[in-house]
């Protein structure tokens, strides 16, 4: 395998699952951009540049998986709050199942004992 192959595979994986992580953060209710971005960014290795999450949020909004509303925050100025749409909720439920199966499949291959 070429050098850096593992890192490349991980970055591809991360890119693929990032939008579901965003949707998952919104399952319990609406959040504003900074909250979402900081939560993800505090999880080790999830986000390298915080700013790149805003285009992702914008795309989710255009794909009708999340909606946004401007609202007064407890502290500070009004903010754009993101919340799940029905389609977004359906999408994250499906992905949760798919991901569990995928993870088990990969795990079973990675940790297979002996080589029959």
């Amino acid at each position, binding site marked *: 395998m070429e050098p850096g192959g593992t890192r490349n595979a991980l970055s591809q994986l991360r890119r693929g699952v990032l939008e579901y992580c965003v949707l998952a953060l919104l399952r319990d209710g609406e959040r*504003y*951009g*900074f909250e979402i*971005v*900081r939560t993800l*960014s505090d999880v080790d290795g999830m986000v*390298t*540049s*915080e*700013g*790149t999450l*805003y*285009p*992702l*949020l*914008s*795309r989710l909004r255009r794909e009708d998986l999340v909606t946004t509303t401007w609202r007064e925050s407890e*502290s*500070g*100025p009004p*903010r*754009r709050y993101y919340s799940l749409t029905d389609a977004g909720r359906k999408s994250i439920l499906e992905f949760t199942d798919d991901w569990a199966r995928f993870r088990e499949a990969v795990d079973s291959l990675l940790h297979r004992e002996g080589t029959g």
Partner: protein
Amino acid sequence: MISVDTERLVDEYMQRLASAARVLPKERQAELLSEIRFHVADALRASDAVDEVDVRNILERIGTPEEIVAAAVEGQPVPGAVQTHFDSLEVAAVLVLGLGGFFFPVIGWLVGVVMVWISGAWSTRDKLIGTAAPFALAFLVPLLFILGGAATGGDSNLGPTEMLFIAAGGSGLFGGVAGALFLAARLSVTTRAEHKRRNVLKIALGVALGGIAFVLVAGLGVVVLRGPGAQAHAYNVARVPVTTAQYHSLKVGEVTLAQVVADFGEPLITCSSSGCEGSGGVSNGQLPSGLLAHAAPVGQQCIYYNHEDAESVYRLCFDNAGGKLFTKSSS
């Protein structure tokens, strides 16, 4: 408190982001800029002490404007990518737009215009430019004539009407070609990456489509312009230029229209008092050398022949009552 220096850092960052974001659609530029601005404000508020190092760290965590915009561009059509797609229709449209006018003035070009606007491969801006090219030229060409006339000391033997005529015809034809070339260029710019074989097939099909459009327009043109069955009007009679000697042999008051036509063949243009009608590729009263035919005096019919030098024409007017040659002139 945010010092002037840290404020300047944020401002500079936002300006870089704004200029990098110009590739995005307007409303998404505004959305991205506002979100990042709020993010910076929230991050500053969340940070305990705000000095220059804090601000630099915050901006570094956000990432460079370029990578943020790159993330926004990813997965969305890149500017100009709307045109990646081209098909036989586009090839045919370019051909008909560029060459249609040569075969069927105005109508051929119009069909090309319709095909261009049907196609989804060009942006509205490109379509406008491609369509407007003849009109733009129509302003330029007379200007060139005037400048050219001034340069040669005003020695031009073309009157303003003739110039207008040539300008309209020329700009119609070459404007069509220019518009077609422009649209073709807008296609090829974005299709380099596409598979060559598929493109060849598309072009072949497009040429065929263009050919079919030509034939259809041709049929329509014949029916509309000349009326059904007008083909028998002997438009393809060979037109032999009339020599000076032949011209002088024509006696006023003696020779008849029928005799002249029998001797010299179908005239270039036939004019009654109400207007002129051309033949053999000459139309609308315009003679090959750029001279104009004029309506005949009341009660007369005038015909035009080329002189053998192809520079001047003979005008022969016949009295409708007696049918005899009434006046003859050369110009």
